[in-house]
Every structure is written in structure tokens, then in C-alpha cells.
């Protein structure tokens, strides 16, 4: 009985994904009417996919246009092994999907734009955890500060690209003051964060990016600052750290472990 139900559900699900496989025999009534209703059901499914993706990827949608995006949503939904109950998570695999999406081979920056948008989307729905305050750091002596391991706030993402995805993204914002670049080439390093309610991204210097990346990899603050100075001679930790804290990029510091006590 359970097997039979599972088979019927499987047949129905396959029919929603494959237009050639209408499961009309599962239903009473004239097959033509059933086929029409199933087509409506499929239309709803695609429309829900479209809306879920458009919520997370408004700039990708603007870049490719609505009809292309609709077709993309259908292709993604049908090819994607989707096990997530939350449609807000539905688009998680889109950046990788776009990287191999043949119709966009001429727009190779699209996957990185999507990576940036997904990071912003995740930050939007992310944690409200209180970020670290200056007072916490001000209380540390120099050695403890150098040895501290800093956890970045869970809403923070570091996105680097060989394409001008920051400019492309900003040109599509409602209050945009920049226009689209005439050529999408040109790399950038971006910090995604959510200062309070609104997810944002800003350009990072090479030093900032290297330091935050190093902290994200679990290195201590002393190492992170050295990495920053190695890629950017004028990197100023005295200006950068208060700025990062003001932006809420740091969550907490793990006190340094004593030697021989590595976790």
C-alpha cells in the first residue's frame, strides 16, 4: 500500500517535471481535460520557481530579461535535485548552474553576479546575532590581541571576482548613482554584510580582503594583519579594525589557547 502510494506520487512528480509524461491515467475524467489541468499545475510550479529565484537574483533577472529568466527558472528547477522545503533556499545552486549554462557562455560574469546576489540574499535572512563591540577588543593586551581568533559575523561574505560585479550590481540598485560599465571586465573584491536590516556590499581594499579572508580561515589576528600588509603596503590596521567593528563584521573573539592546548 505504501509502495503503491509512493509510486503514484513519483509518477505525479515526474509528470510535473517532464512535459512528455503527463500522468493522465492517474485521474478520472477525460484525458484531454486532465492534461490541461496538469499543464496549469506545471505552470504554477514554474511560476513559483521564477518568483523564488527572482527574489534572490533581481540583478541576474534584470541582466538577462524576464522571459529568459523565466525559462532559466524552469530549466534550473527541472535539472536541479531539489530537497529543500524552503523556497528561500531554492536558488542556492544557481551560481554553479549558471557557470555551466551554455546559453550564457557569452556572459561569463553572470555566475559571479549570482554569487554576490546569493551572499546578499543569505545575509538578508541571516542571523541577528549582536556583533562584537570595540570595548571587547580594547580590553585585550597586545599579545592576546595578536593571538586572538576572530569569528566573522555569519552574515558576512567575501566575494572576489575577475569581473566588475560590484559596479554591475550597484548600477541595478533603485538609488543607483552609477551606470552600467560598458565593459564587464575588471576585477573587484567585495564585503557583503548586513549592518542592521539591509544587506549591503562594499568594495574592500586588497589588504582588508586578505585580512578578513585569513580570519575566516581560522588564522589569528596577528597573522591576518601580516597577510594584509603583505598585499597592501599602506594597509592601516588602526583604521580598518574600528571600521570593521562599526560595520558589524566581527562576531566574537575566541581567547587564544595556551601552547599544547590546540583544540
Amino acid at each position, binding site marked *: 500500500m505504501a509502495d503503491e502510494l509512493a509510486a503514484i506520487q513519483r509518477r505525479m512528480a515526474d509528470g510535473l517535471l517532464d512535459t512528455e509524461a503527463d500522468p493522465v491515467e492517474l485521474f478520472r475524467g477525460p484525458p484531454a481535460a486532465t492534461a490541461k489541468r496538469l499543464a496549469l499545475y506545471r505552470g504554477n510550479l514554474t511560476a*513559483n520557481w521564477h518568483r523564488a529565484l527572482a527574489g534572490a537574483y533581481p540583478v541576474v533577472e534584470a541582466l538577462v530579461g524576464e522571459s*529568459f529568466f523565466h525559462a532559466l527558472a524552469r530549466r534550473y528547477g527541472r535539472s536541479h535535485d531539489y530537497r529543500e522545503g524552503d523556497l528561500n533556499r531554492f536558488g542556492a545552486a544557481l551560481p554553479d548552474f549558471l557557470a555551466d549554462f551554455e546559453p550564457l557562455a557569452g556572459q561569463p560574469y553572470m555566475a559571479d553576479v549570482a554569487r554576490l546576489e546569493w551572499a546578499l540574499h543569505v545575509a538578508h535572512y541571516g542571523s541577528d546575532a549582536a556583533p562584537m563591540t570595540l570595548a571587547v577588543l580594547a580590553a585585550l593586551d597586545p599579545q592576546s590581541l595578536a593571538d586572538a581568533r576572530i569569528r566573522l559575523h555569519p552574515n558576512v561574505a567575501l566575494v572576489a571576482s575577475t569581473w566588475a560585479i560590484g559596479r554591475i550590481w550597484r548600477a541595478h540598485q533603485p538609488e543607483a548613482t552609477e551606470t552600467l560599465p560598458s565593459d564587464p571586465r575588471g576585477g573587484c573584491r567585495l564585503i557583503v554584510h548586513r549592518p542592521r536590516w539591509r544587506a549591503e556590499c562594499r568594495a574592500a581594499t586588497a589588504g582588508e580582503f586578505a585580512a578578513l579572508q585569513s580570519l575566516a580561515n581560522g588564522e589569528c589576528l596577528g597573522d591576518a*594583519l601580516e597577510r594584509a600588509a603583505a598585499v597592501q603596503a599602506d594597509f592601516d590596521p588602526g583604521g580598518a579594525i574600528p571600521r570593521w567593528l562599526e560595520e558589524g563584521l566581527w562576531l566574537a573573539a575566541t581567547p587564544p589557547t595556551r601552547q599544547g592546548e590546540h583544540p
Partner: protein
Amino acid sequence: MNKRQFLVAAAIAGIAAAAANPALAAKDGKEKCFGIAKAGANDCASSTGGHACAGQATKDHDPNEWKYVAKGTCTEMGGSLKAGGKS
């Protein structure tokens, strides 16, 4: 003073200066928060109120109905490119 000590000293000076700045230290994190809602993906109701479900008017049973041609703002950026970035 080695490089690392120099960097940590600079960090401490900056942290101390910022912590002593009442404008920063007393920042209460209040900001404008209107216009931040994102359209939810999980609600079934149509935002325009016409249908109970998003795509109700759209039938979907043509497997090859679409030729992919990007027609959005990407056409403003130098047309078609090869992958690989800063070439």
C-alpha cells in the same frame, strides 16, 4: 619592533582612539529601516491579488517553447565575451 608588533601596535592605537570617541562608542545602532522587506518566496497568494497561486493563468506543456536570447541590461555591456576575466 618587527612588522607584526608594528601592526598590532597600530591596531591597538586605532581601537583605543575609536573606543574613546563617544560618537562611535555610544552608537546605538538605530537606523532607518523602512523599505527593507523582500518579497517572500513561500507565500502562494499573488501579489497582484488576481489569483490564489502565482502562475495560475500559465499553462506549461510545451517542451521546446523557448530559445534562450538574453534581452535584458546585459546587452548594454559589450555583447558576448569569452570566459576568463581580465584577458
